């Protein structure tokens, strides 16, 4: 059994965040990142047979910019990248991901969920690059976003740049709002509108939070999220 390196970066506490990581076979990396203020970059280089999972949350507020750059450099390298960002009043939050499939036979999956409220602005700018001859690549990318207020603003730019043919790549992006039917249903069962909306928002972000296996870390993320919304 390989031991998983579990690294937790709580940028909001230590002020440091981001960093460079090399991932090799037999030592899978799990990175939980609570993004700190300002801007920072996280780079992962995954070698042959290496596996990495990243779960990040951008909840710090203010003017923030985060970059996640992942190079898949050896056959069998796998990446799971899950993230969420919430931009409320006064926030400008930019999340950029760049996943580069440089060699054949690698897998990547990205899910990034965004919420903008008040006059908040959120940007997802994600690139999947598949190099020439990087055959048998599997790359998936999802950007799901919700606008909660009339002055909120979401931009999403999921991009595929593909130079090999025997690949399975897809991406999807949505910008929408919370389903009113759901709120009505919950209110019919006695929840206040606010409670229903909160629950719904948690539900929306649950897909990302649920990827955190470590209980205390998940609680930390959830607490930070609840404080934010």
């Amino acid at each position, binding site marked *: 059994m390989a031991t998983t390196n579990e690294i937790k970066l709580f940028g909001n506490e230590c002020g440091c965040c981001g960093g460079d990581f090399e991932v090799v076979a037999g030592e899978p990396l799990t990175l939980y990142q609570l993004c700190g203020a300002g801007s920072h970059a996280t780079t992962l280089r995954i070698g042959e047979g290496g596996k990495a999972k990243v779960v990040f949350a951008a909840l710090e507020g203010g003017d923030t910019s985060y970059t996640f750059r992942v190079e898949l450099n050896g056959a069998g390298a796998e990446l799971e990248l899950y993230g969420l960002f919430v931009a409320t009043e006064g926030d400008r939050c930019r999340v950029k991901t760049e996943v580069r499939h440089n060699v054949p036979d690698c897998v990547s999956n990205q899910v990034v969920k965004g919420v903008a409220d008040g006059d908040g602005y959120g940007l997802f700018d994600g690139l999947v690059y598949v190099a020439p001859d990087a055959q048998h690549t599997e790359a998936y990318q999802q950007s799901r976003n919700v606008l909660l207020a009339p002055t909120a603003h979401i931009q999403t730019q999921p991009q595929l740049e593909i130079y090999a043919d025997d690949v399975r790549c897809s991406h999807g992006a949505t910008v929408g709002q919370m389903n009113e039917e759901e709120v009505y249903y919950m209110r019919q*069962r*006695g929840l206040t509108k606010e409670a229903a909306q909160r629950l719904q928002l948690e539900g929306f972000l649950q897909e990302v939070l649920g990827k955190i296996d470590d209980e205390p870390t998940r609680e930390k993320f959830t607490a930070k999220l609840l404080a934010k919304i």
Partner: protein
Amino acid sequence: MLKVKNLHATVDGKEILRGIDFEVKAGEVHAIMGPNGSGKSTFASVLAGNEKFTVTEGTVEYGGEDLLELSIEERARKGLFLGFQYPVEIPGVSMANFMKLAVAERRKAQGLEPLTAGGMLKYMREKAAVVELDAKLMSRAVNEGFSGGEKKKNEIFQMAMLEPKLAVLDETDSGLDIDALRIVATGVNRLRSEQNATVLITHYQRLLDYIQPDFVHVLYKGRIIYSGDKSLALKLEKEGYDWLIADYKED
């Protein structure tokens, strides 16, 4: 318990309910029948306070209060339960968490202490058993990936959890096989008491084989045009609505 007088309601400016008079007393079971598009579901939605509909005229009194003045959740907390025809899926929100909140609100309104975590769990298991709902569904998101039958059972399960005074079940029987129908009916019958009342909105008299109504009403073009006892349902099943609505063809 419920007094509806001359209720008119519109959606997108189109009048759907056009003067409903309807009264329910504690301990009674009413069935509302009628052809498609007669306004049955709209009536249920208006009682629940669905904001898609605008009440333009009439009054609704519930437990001595003006129901129309209450918000959706206030109505629910005061014991008005709507069993949805198409229960919505709420991704990411677990049944357990959802019910915990809903039950806490209901108990608060009833002046009861909140249940402990253990008490809640026990309570949920107990009620799930009533409708033979797989307890595993509790850890899933609300209605997400539930089969049609599971969704309907889930509605009755929630009804059992919230112990309503007035339950309005909107086509809860539609799309159910006989087994599921029996289970749903058993659930409804078990919850029947002298203190509460049930309004069944249905298309078929089939459900009424399992749940005996005290009164049967026919809703047509937004009005209750005929009321009778349970024999009316049988007559409708046999003869259809034509003999009733012939007089109402003209507007």
